[in-house]
């Protein structure tokens, strides 16, 4: 306390009112949040029964690291990850796969969507340690040898990206959809992509592009 003499001027403060962090009013740590809502988030993002080991989700302190094996875009990595890293941080900061974007870091916007064992997940809300043994596909893993997938090509032709920040997430969810349903209707696309927000509100063009990709033969 550097300025003790000013403390005499305190107003009638209710001592029962506790300090509330405005950016985290429930005083939850990120890990609390993940543990509390992880199951719902996972289900909402379309994956189930990934068998996340409970022990790995426990708080282990800032210096704690865990060895994992993970395959990303066809390349396998054995690495020690900080237990507090999210999967998005692992991809972006450690593997330099910055195509995956962080828009909200709290399972609201879908910009960070990647495919985990073929299913779309919000990588901001998966811990990196949970990816042990998993196969991950990011937007960088779509085009092969410079050849765009049909849905990427359709985004190019039909102005799928405006600012482009949500585009990687939209593409990954669309890819999962097309893998399961090669000729989706516009309604199918809207249903599947409902968890991917676009504030440019380029929704019409995105849906048209995914439908177009389906008509043109599904994802290779």
């Amino acid at each position, binding site marked *: 306390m550097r300025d003790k003499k000013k403390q005499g001027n305190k107003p009638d403060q209710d001592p029962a009112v506790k300090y509330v962090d405005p950016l985290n009013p429930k005083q939850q740590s990120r890990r609390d949040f993940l543990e509390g809502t992880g199951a719902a988030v996972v289900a909402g993002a379309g994956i189930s029964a990934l068998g996340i080991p409970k022990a790995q989700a426990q708080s282990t302190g800032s210096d704690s690291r865990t060895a994992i094996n993970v395959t990303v875009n066809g390349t396998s990595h054995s690495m020690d990850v900080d237990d507090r890293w999210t999967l998005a941080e692992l991809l972006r900061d450690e593997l330099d796969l910055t195509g995956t974007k962080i828009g909200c870091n709290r399972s609201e916007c879908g910009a960070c969507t990647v495919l985990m064992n073929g299913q779309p997940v919000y990588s901001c809300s998966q811990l990196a340690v949970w990816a042990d043994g998993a196969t991950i596909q990011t937007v960088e893993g779509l085009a092969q040898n410079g050849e*765009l997938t049909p849905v990427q090509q359709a985004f190019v032709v039909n102005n799928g990206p*405006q600012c*482009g920040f*949500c585009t990687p997430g939209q593409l990954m969810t669309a890819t999962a959809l097309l893998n399961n349903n090669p000729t989706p209707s516009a309604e199918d696309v809207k*249903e599947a992509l409902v968890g991917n927000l676009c504030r440019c509100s380029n929704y019409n063009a995105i849906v048209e592009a995914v439908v177009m990709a389906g008509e043109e033969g599904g994802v290779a």
Partner: protein
Amino acid sequence: MSEFTREGLEPLATIGNDTPRIDAIERVTGQAKYTRDWKLPGMLYAKVLRSPHPHARIVSIDTSEADALPGVQTVISYENAQVVWGAGSVNGGRQYNDPTKEATIHRRYIFNNPVRFVGDSIAAVAATDRHIAEQAVSLIKVEYEQLPFVLEPEEALADDAPQVYAEGNLCPDFRGEFAPMVSDIGDTEAGFAEADQIFEERYETGFIHNAQMEPRCSLAHWQGDKLVLYSPSQGISNCRHDTARDLGLEDHQVQVITKYMGGGFGNKNQNQDADVIAATLSRRAGAPVMLEYSRREDWLGVHGRWPTVQYYKVGVKDDGEVTAMELRAFSGMGPYRKNSGGISGMDAYGCPNRYREISPVYTNRTTSGNFRAPSEPHGFYGVENMMDEVAYQIGMDPVEFTLKNMRRPTEEQQFTNYTLDEVIQNGAERFNWQGRRRVTPGSDEGPIKRGAGFSFMMFRAGVGTSSAIVRVNANQEYTLYVGVTDIGPGAKTTMGMIAAEALEVPLSQVEVVWGDTDRCPYSVGESGSRTTIMTGIAVVEAAEDLKRQIADRGMPSGSDVLIASASPTPTTDGKTRQCFGAHFVEVEVDTRIGSTKILKYTTVHESGRIINPSTARDQIRGATIQGIGQALHENLLYDPKTGQPLTPGYYRARHLTHKDIPDIDVHFIETDDGYGPFGAKTAGESGIILAPAAVANAVANAIGRRMTSLPITRDKILGAMA
């Protein structure tokens, strides 16, 4: 569907053809590099500590534990880093005016004491790791003396209201005088005396966060006395100038780089506090610093559209002629004035007697600022719902009433062209206005009711100074240097297409260099619907100059190049230049649960000649959808007891998702008035102006109750029907 009518226009080689963005591949493969994607050697990560209180004086701050945390490099706060953020608060909200910024009375610092809203910044930490920075921020101990706060603009002007500043809560104008903004045309008293009927109503609108997908961030890196700033700016020249002024540097000592940026819609026009905070931390730490805001910080710490209260009074004769209009209004600016607080719309009417008085007011909510057409959507909602109501009250079709009363060219004020009649009539026909609207509002039987609404607008498409450089080498490869960034509308591609057209070469022969103040000349910035017109005109001029050089000297050979630059200051010969639009929408309201569904949406716009049809189409569709969100969902609510924000974030503000989106028909009536680049006007902001007004009018037509408060959430419809 989308349709482009080009009657009487000569087809062009490049312009007018659907063209994929020149950077589309980067955008769909994850190669596009946004600010947070940069990584520099030795880069530190930074986090900001923000106020938990709506209004408080900081009694003491103790950063010793944060300082001592291993990995922490620098901690700065209001005590040891008192840097004015000039664009954060400006007299009169004049964002682009240096002398006004210098003279600003209520300055905003990068860290403030007292703090004046929940989210006001207090201190920042730079550390070797993002998580260490987060942890260090949580270790800073702050003792607050809480102060009384005020949230509503009308309440803030009461005599006994808590004072945000000692001088009171009415914001100073650009002269530093504490007075409302007044516009007084003709004689309203005489106009009201002439009227057969006078109508009055109060309208209010909410706070709409820009909510661009990319949260605010900034990467600062000093090279000696030069600052290199990677920032998601929608105006790199403005960002450089603002940052240089804030830090006491010359413009050339700051380089702003914006390769890709994730949207802005007006909240990345000037420099941001993040830029100045990152630069300050970086200078002290002697290392590059990446400052990242969380989504919640972005929601509270940046800005959104100002909430308003609008009292209208309209005098009308029995034949539908409007004789007088009056608006007395209040705009909630938060505790810092980043923009005017304007409320437009009345100017779209020709009525000769108009009085408008707007009081921009300080409150302890988060800051208000630019959002796509800053003064328009809430104003057009207010005035066009007022006029729609008047039309139905006197038994007139709102479209007829508009055609009778809308502003038209006069001898004193000519337009470069005027197509509003055609735009409105075209839209009414396409939409089947007569078939869809209910002559008696709310007349559908049963609880599920349909109705149709209409709105119209004109919006600035003025010309002004910007710059471009174009170069050609012996391989006939052209390079265009323009200081634009692409915030979504496709400016890079648009500029390339204009250059290709003017140079008479294919677009594939034109490389566009953008987004770097050290490599590109001044550009106006991607705000105010200016880039296509102003930088586009500069591109045409530079291209014409280069073509003359080629004609005079022949194509360059060997390692020679030819270069042309242009910084034109065009005029419109005293005429006003406007784009025009009309929206028609049919809704279905379930009065049992208060929900509103869009059944049909038709837009007609005249934006001059369209450069790239697909990106123009999606500017209108995207802006319309944002406007529908403003009409039906979005708002930042506060708890009146605690002053805490309740709905920051996409879910809480209930942003539209894929499943909420209707088909939107887009029709452009293309023209060339001879003033824009190949006749182009503006499209980016215009779509959002119309949607809130049209949707609210349609709801009123469906349920027979005028909805006087945006957003029209379910509770409000249920309340109106009760």
